[in-house]
Every structure is written in structure tokens, then in C-alpha cells.
């Protein structure tokens, strides 16, 4: 790829073990040329934000099916702001009722994908919306 490689963290907040979606999306993004890091399951907001900063990612994809998104997503966004990493683009998917979407978008989640979204759609969105955060330091 000509452009610098974009790094994406696929993260599983919450206690649910439903990782089929997260893994499929992780693989599809990798196949589409992105550098993908998958956190594994049962991650706290702190763990996710720390991983994002350590790995210096450009975007975070959150997958949650436990229903705890209204508690966990705002916490993740708050931690990113506290660490000065609010320019990391955050998108999400899983079981998220329509009524919850406006509130989550208001806290800074850029896009919530509904169940049944095609991989193509997700990749197209990422292509459009995720850019390298900054030119990496030399050396």
C-alpha cells in the first residue's frame, strides 16, 4: 500500500463471549490491508484505552453484545479524552438498540453498525473515515 498503514484495534468490552462478529471484522479489515490488533475478550474500558494508546492505533472498533454499551462506551470515550487521544476514531457494532444510538453518538462514537451489516460496508466506511492520526515520529 502506498499510504502509511492504518492501525485498528478491535476490542471486546464487557463480559459477553460473543466474539464471532469481532473476529470476522478483524479478519476482513486485515484482508483489506489494515493492521489489526484484536484485544481478546472481557476487556475493561481501561484495558481497551491502554491498548489503543500503547499500540498507537488510528481507530478502535468496539464489539459488544451484552447490553452494557450504555455504561461502557461513554467510559471508554471519557478515558480517551483524559489521555488526549480523542482523535482516535471509534466505531462499534453488536446488539445495540436503535434508541441507544443517538446517546452513544453524542458521547463521541462515530458510527454504530447494525447486525447484518456487510463487511464491504464496514470496510468502505473505515476507508472513508479513518485516516492516519499523525505522521509517525522518525527513528
Amino acid at each position, binding site marked *: 500500500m502506498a499510504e502509511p498503514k492504518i492501525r485498528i484495534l478491535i476490542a471486546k468490552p464487557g463480559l459477553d463471549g460473543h466474539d464471532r462478529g469481532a473476529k470476522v471484522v478483524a479478519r476482513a479489515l486485515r484482508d483489506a490491508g489494515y493492521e489489526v490488533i484484536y484485544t481478546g475478550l472481557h476487556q475493561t474500558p481501561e484495558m481497551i484505552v491502554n491498548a489503543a494508546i500503547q499500540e498507537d492505533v488510528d481507530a478502535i472498533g468496539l464489539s459488544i453484545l451484552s447490553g452494557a454499551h450504555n455504561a461502557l462506551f461513554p*467510559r471508554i470515550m471519557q478515558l480517551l479524552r483524559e489521555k488526549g487521544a480523542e482523535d482516535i476514531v471509534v466505531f462499534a457494532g453488536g446488539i445495540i438498540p436503535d434508541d441507544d444510538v443517538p446517546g452513544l453518538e453524542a458521547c463521541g462514537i462515530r458510527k454504530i453498525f447494525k447486525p447484518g451489516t456487510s463487511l464491504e460496508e464496514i470496510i468502505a466506511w473505515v476507508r472513508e473515515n479513518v485516516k492516519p492520526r499523525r505522521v509517525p515520529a522518525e527513528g
Partner: protein
Amino acid sequence: MEEREGEQLMAETERWERETVRRWIEQVPERAERFSTISDLEIKRLYGPWDIAGTDYLRDIGYPGEYPFTRGIHATMYRGRLWTMRQFAGFGTAEDTNRRFRYLLEQGQTGLSVAFDMPTLMGYDSDHPRALGEVGREGVAVDTLEDMKILFDGIPLDQVTTSMTINGPAAVLLAMYVAVAEEQGIPLDRIGGTTQTDILKEFIAQKEWIVPPRPSMRIVQDMLVWSTRNLPKWNPISISGYHIREAGATAVQELAFTLADGIAYVQAGIEAGMDVDEFAPRLSFFFDCHIDFFEEIAKFRAARRMWAKIMRERFQAKNPRSWWLRFHTQTAGVSLTAQQPLNNIARVAIQALAAVLGGTQSLHTNSMDETYALPTEEAVTVALRTQQIIAYETGVANTIDPLGGSYFVEALTNKVEEEAWRYIHRIDEMGGMLAAVEMGYPQREIAEASYRYQQQLERREKFIVGVNIFRSEEEVPIPILKIDPDVERRQVERLRRIRSNRNARRAESALKDLRHALEVGENCMPYILEAVKAYCTLGEICDVLRAVFGEYREPVII
């Protein structure tokens, strides 16, 4: 089939392909180059006697209630008794779920099935930092014996059977259930039900674990022994393919990994010093029923035949009940769509029909709204009514295994069985399922299959109505169950009240004794029972397990 007759048929079939089929295809081409099941097993244009030429009716198919049970485990199947209609339910606090249970029983449901929330499944109390936002969301929160008492309030435990979907902390929840029965004055030989306790499939697919695989198996072993000796009507393990399938496995993988898990549990029971016939009759199974109608029916038929062979030939079980593969089925949550949710009612009906034609012993039908949230009362009623329509209107329960003898179904049953044995032999070579899980083998196979299917969807080789074909722009919203956000606060309040009101000395010494039992390798069940009666919390008991055995971190595989 006589050899000459066979040859003649082959010749005739070739002629049919050459003349009739080819001429037809020239005018009306087939819809695809290749037809395959949702699991990608290739399906032929036509099946006939030539496809089951090697099948011997008495040896391979036989009679219901007799080895190898291909047609059903009971002699009269649904003519005697219909399957148990068992809707999985649990949300909010114990009071909320108790109300749903009573409602379902009033609607004619015949067994209970408890869904616990995520912190309960992971062995955390409701006030643990990791429980934030999760309490009562995906199931009911149970922290102490108090919650369990409320959950079954007004439900005499000798009148219902209860299935509990709980694995890592299964021993703790079983102990609580036993303590509730004792309080209700019901003798332990009269309580019936199931704890899932299938920890291997947690590592493979469902991913709600506490301690690493080997100590987990040891706890399962303790429970199996204790339950076999104290709860004659309890099913201590429900060997589950459901979650394996939902994680993206094929039908063959679901079947093979589930039976391989079963083999590991039987071995564990034998290694604990029990005779196989002492405990094997109480092992039960739990499968998914996906949307590929015939593949699922074939899977259920193959499952019965394979388990019967495994138990009789491999483990030398003598009691025919040890050969029975009794199973619960749930329709495939993963097949439901958020788009055009009413369509899910049709999907569930078709899947439920396949489960019944496959000879299930009990059934949960999913509700149309489950891609959004836990089901509303209205949605769950439609799901239950779907089963009742199949049972009382369609006539499919009038005769046993009505699809038995279908060339296609018999050939597919053979095919599914053959492919599943291949996996089982592979796992045997790795040293059994425990070793295979530690190597990440089934996890990797499932991830591969699930990605393959997603790609087929993207290429539109496979279809989901409303998702990649027949989409509608206008979506009609459906009502969704909302969990009261106050649940967490109320649950935490109750938990803290119990912690401060209990006899602290009794609780503390119960936990100490449990720790000692775990360290010296004594059966931990009596100690867990004492701990729950002393009002130790689920989290405290599981903390002892974590302290003794360590926590599990999974290898990350994508």
C-alpha cells in the same frame, strides 16, 4: 439391494441425466453451478437407492427405542409424550424473572430454563467493577442464596424441572438450587433438571470461564460424582453444541466437537472411579437448530447413532440408557436478523420443525426481537405458540421419524456422520478435547468456518432475506424490552445487606474449608453447599477457585 438391481439402477440414472436432465437444463439452466448446505456440504440433484446402497436397515437405522437409535431414543416418541417446551428466560432481578417464570408456566410451558447475567456466568458479584452495566442485562443476577430463593418463590421444585445455563460456577448455582429445595422441604431425589456445566465448550466457543481448563475439568468431575450419588434425577452436564454453532461452526463441527466434549466428560467420570453406567444415563445434550432444514435433521439422527456407538463400543456401557443421546434444542439465534424482524417468526418455525423431525426431547424457540434485546412477553409468547402449533396442529408428531428412509435424509445422515468421525479421530490423535482446546484447535476451525460463511454471504453465494437479498429501505420498528437501569442499584443493595447481616464467622470458615478441600483434592461439592448456606456470595466462592487455580487467559486467535 441386489447387485444386479443396483447396476441396472445406475444405468437408468445415467440415462436420466443424459437424456431428460440435459434436455431440460438446455432450456432452463439450474440456479447455481453448485448447491450446498449452509455448512457447505455439497448437495446432489437427486438422491436415490444408489446413495444408501451400503446402508443396512437393521444395523444402521433400526427401530426407535433400540440401538443405534437413529430414529429416536424412545419406542413411541411423541405419540407417548410431546417434547418439553422450555423457554430460556432471565433478566433483571430475581423478582423480575420469577414473574416471567410464573407467566410462562401459566401459558402452558412445561419446564423452566434460567438465563443468568454475565457477571453471574463469570463468577463476579453484582458490585464487582467488571459487572458495571452488566447486572441483569442478559439474564438474571444471582449473587447469593437469597436471590435463588426469590427466583423460585411459589414454584415447588418437585413440580417443575429446571435447566440452568451455567458453566464455570455451575457447582455454586447447583448448590444454591439444592439449598432452595431443602428449604422447600423437598427431598433431593425428587428434584429434576439440568446444569449445563459444559466447561469445554466455554473454552471453545461461549467464552465465559473462571479458571483454566484442567482445574475446570476437576470441578466438573467433583460435581458429576456428587450429583450422581445425591441427585438421581439431575442431569449434571448438558453437553452443548449450541454455542459452538452460534460461534460460526458448521453442522459437522458442532456435532463432532460436542461429541468429543462428551467423550472427555465420560472419561472424567470413569477416571473419578465411577462405573460408566452409573453416571452416563444422566448425561444430556444441547444442540442448535439452524436454518438448513435437512442438514439439521440429518445432524440429529447422526448424533444419536454416533453417541450410541461411542457409549457401547468405546466405553463398553451395558445399560441402554447410557447409549441414549437425549437432547435439548434451541433454534439458531445467529440466523435471526435485525432487518425485518417479523421474518424471524418464519425462520424460528422452520427451525423448530426441523428439531421436532430430528427427535428432540425439549425445545426453546427464539423470539423475533432477540437481535435487539431480550424478548418482550409478547414476542416470547409467539415463540412458544409456534411450538404448540407444531405439536397440536401440524400432525408431524403423529408418527416416529417421518423422514427416515428418505434417500436424501439417510444419505445426508451418513455423510454428516462420516465427516464428524473424521474430526473426532483427529481430536483423539491430539490427546482428546482438553488437549485440543489447549492447542486452540477447535477455536481455529470455528473461526475459519465462520469467516468462510461470511465471505459466501458477501459474494452472495449464500443468502439472508432482508440482509443481502430482498432488503427494504423502510424498517418498521418493533417494541423492545427495556431493562430498568435501577436493577443494578437494587441488586447491589441487596447483596451488601446480605453481606453485613450474615453470620460472618460461619461464612469465613466455610470459605476456608472450601479452599482446603480444593487444595487437598477432596470433592468440593459439600463445601460449596455449606458456603452457599452460609450466605457466601457467588463472587467470594469463585474467588477461592481463582486463588487456588489461577485465572484463565485465552490465546487470542482471529
